[in-house]
């Protein structure tokens, strides 16, 4: 009699249910020690994870993914729109996207600041703007991109760390900057904010405060990688497979615009990009700000070159099958910023015209210069930027010199 009872009790729900909870909890804890690379769909998230404050990526890390795809295909949960590609992403010991030797070798001549466009989201290490520019212009370009706003102090400190006594700072400005709250806050607070200490940080979560109190930064640094549940990510990825608009509706579908190009190919965009030129945009802030920054950098023998990068939709809007409503302002936003900067004597390169021309020419051959499934430009698009900048300076300008204003 004893045996069947024992078997029965083992399979009772009163035993099985707690076991399920314990197993799931154990799996969750165990998987938290797994690197993010295993659950990332591309390099960016894996590299960004576990970074030190103030730098964009985890230091001295190499990511290699053979089936990466674009952020827009992921955001919209559109597997059919994915364009798989291999991606290698390497960071140096300072947490920027450079070959490891870049941080330790001779001082760079060019410092590249800017957004994920300059970082090279979606492309390989040798296809980034810094890599292509370095090859074309025969100079050492340090890729310090990865944040929207950098104060002169931050730039100065980085230049000193790299033993850079003089050189050029290429500062990329992306057309869609305004959608980012970080940039809007910065504008609201006006430029003097940049030289004052940064605003107080938001209070840390309770668990962070406890760990800091108990064990200082070491414990906190140990905790942070563990605070993200890989099981949650995996579970979400599995659930999203069902949200395919066949079995379950895809709620993410509305987050992305799918448009047809004139050659019939589909390309993804973020909806805000499509309405960007439907409202007036004021470029008057640009000249005072960049002039001030140029002046600040000049104190450290650094010359500023502003690089204006158009948004994907701006480039492909005229190449869409379905005509889009005309912009409310006759002149493009970047063109007006460019004019303001020229008037103020700030060196500037506007990539809109060369990239637009190249996009049209390549589309005739079925090629694109932005990834169809991603918000960023691809290696071909970057090569145009590198070529245009190289034309501005055949080789790096000497210390304190100002680069030519025109390509």
């Amino acid at each position, binding site marked *: 009699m004893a045996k069947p009872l024992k*078997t*029965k009790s083992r*399979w*009772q*729900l*009163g*035993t*099985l*249910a*707690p*076991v*399920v*909870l314990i197993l*799931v*909890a154990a799996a*969750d804890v165990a998987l938290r020690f797994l690197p993010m690379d295993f659950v990332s769909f591309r390099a960016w998230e894996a590299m960004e994870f576990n970074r030190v404050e103030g730098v964009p990526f985890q230091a001295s890390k190499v990511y290699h993914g053979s089936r990466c795809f674009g952020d827009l295909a992921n955001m919209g949960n559109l597997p059919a729109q994915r364009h798989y590609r291999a991606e290698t992403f390497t960071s140096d010991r300072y947490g920027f996207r450079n070959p490891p030797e870049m941080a330790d070798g001779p001082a760079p001549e060019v410092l590249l600041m800017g957004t994920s466009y300059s970082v090279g989201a979606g492309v390989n290490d040798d296809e980034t703007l810094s890599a292509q520019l370095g090859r074309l212009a025969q100079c050492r370009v340090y890729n310090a991109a990865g944040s929207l706003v950098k104060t002169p102090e931050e730039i100065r400190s980085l230049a000193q760390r790299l033993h850079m006594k003089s050189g050029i700072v290429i500062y990329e400005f992306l057309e869609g900057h305004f959608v980012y709250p970080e940039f809007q806050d910065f504008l609201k607070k006006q430029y003097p904010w940049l030289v004052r200490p940064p605003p107080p940080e938001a209070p840390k979560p309770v668990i962070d405060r406890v760990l800091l109190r108990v064990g200082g930064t070491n414990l906190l640094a140990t905790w942070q990688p563990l605070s993200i*549940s890989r*099981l*949650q990510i995996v*579970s*979400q990825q*599995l*659930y999203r497979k069902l*949200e395919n*608009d*066949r*079995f*379950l*509706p895809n*709620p993410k579908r509305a987050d992305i615009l799918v448009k047809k190009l004139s050659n019939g190919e589909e390309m993804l965009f973020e909806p805000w990009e499509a309405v960007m030129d439907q409202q007036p945009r004021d470029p008057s802030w640009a000249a005072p700000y960049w002039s001030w920054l140029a002046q600040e950098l000049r104190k450290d023998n650094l010359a500023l070159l502003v690089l204006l990068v158009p948004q994907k939709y701006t480039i492909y809007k005229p190449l869409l099958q379905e005509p889009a409503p005309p912009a409310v302002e006759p002149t493009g936003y970047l063109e007006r910023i460019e004019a303001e900067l020229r008037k103020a004597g700030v060196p500037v390169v506007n990539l809109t015209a060369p990239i637009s021309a190249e996009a049209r020419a390549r589309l005739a051959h079925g090629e694109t210069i932005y990834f169809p499934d991603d918000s960023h430009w691809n290696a071909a698009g970057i090569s145009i930027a590198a070529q245009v900048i190289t034309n501005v300076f055949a080789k790096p300008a000497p210390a304190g010199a100002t680069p030519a204003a025109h390509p």
Partner: protein
Amino acid sequence: MLFNSGIFLFAFLPIAYLVFWQLKTKQQRYVWLTITGYVFYSFWNYKFCALMAFSTMVSYVAGLGFLKWKDPHRRRLCLVIPIAVDLLLLGFFKYANFVVESAETIAKWADSPFHAATMSIILPVGISFYTFHTITYIVDSYRGTIKPTRNFFEFTAYVSLFSQLVAGPIVRFRQIEGDLENIDHANRWGARSIGWSYFIIGMVKKVLIADTIASMINPGLHADHPIPTATAWLLTLGYTYQLYFDFSGYSDMAVGLGHLFGLRLPQNFNSPYKALNVGDFWHRWHISLSSCLRDYLYIPMGGGRGPLWKVNRNLLITMLLGGLWHGANWTFVVWGAYHGLLLLVHRMIAPSWERLPVVVQRAATFLLVMIGWVFFRSDNFGMAFGWLHSMFCWVPGSGLPWEAGLLAMLAAAGAIAHLGRNTFELRHEWNPWSSLGLAVLFTACVMQVVGGQWTPFLYFQF
């Protein structure tokens, strides 16, 4: 905190359960249940714990008053004061803005310059439920149906019992008094499997059935164009099942949790879509609410006694207030009125109705209830009438892209709701394979919870 959330499953429940069974005396367990109830409640807004504590205190003191005083005048005071306090609190938090907005709308119709600003009031979660707990306690004490408890923590444990605190079932003190009295002798191991069985079935109903249907019908309901007729019927059917599986799922989970702590909570759903008429439906749907409305509102008003107009009046008032209880919106009032009218009509045609074949009675009742849910689900009359228009006037158009999936879900949900046994009809004695099957379904639910795919229960808003 929701039953279907990670914090509840992985932290709150294990701690609450393990500590509870380590405690030996009644008093310790009452105190622990009270603490867990308040912790559970504070996850929404800890400030409202004070409101619940105040309501509890008033009712407890009134209960002591019933024990102390025998003269009718004082006893009446002990009845009226706490009920007035409870209803004032409920009225203020739940209906103040509704009254102001309604008055303003009427003034606008009458072309009057009346204007009153609405207040920024947060509705405390579960106030409709714990108010009913305290009111039923007071009324039953007054009537002598129960003997009020002198044990403060027994009473606080009853009011703040986390398993039924925010969305019922509305448990009367007399229904749980015996188990509370014997809580120190509760059988931990005996009820564990039954408790988990209820809990898992409830969770499957909520997470795998109701939430899946919800994700399929919500985009259709929020479409900014007229809904095609076939889709409108499909959405109505979808919501009909979603609401049932959501709320009965919650109730099952609450009953299961009760078992885990040695408390037997009453049945709240008895296969309502098998009802033969609307009266029968109200004996099967949200039983704890409908029986409260019957015992504390309908019968005191005279119930089914007296002239026909009085009976009809009592019925209509009860159903209107029942509708209003669900939410401060005229759509709920209309839903209550609709059911009141259906009940009146059924009373008139009962003999002929009963001569119909059972299948026809069931189908017709289901259809009538289903149409009523349109008002229940709609945010306003515009949505309700647009939806009804799509159902009853032909609107062409293509269906939802995931209609095949929705039909499959509805077929499964319909089979369970119309043909299956409900959780109180099950014996909850599973063979190993069935246990394993339920454990697999539970794992799927837990994974969905871990993935952050959980949604609040529909009845939380009431």
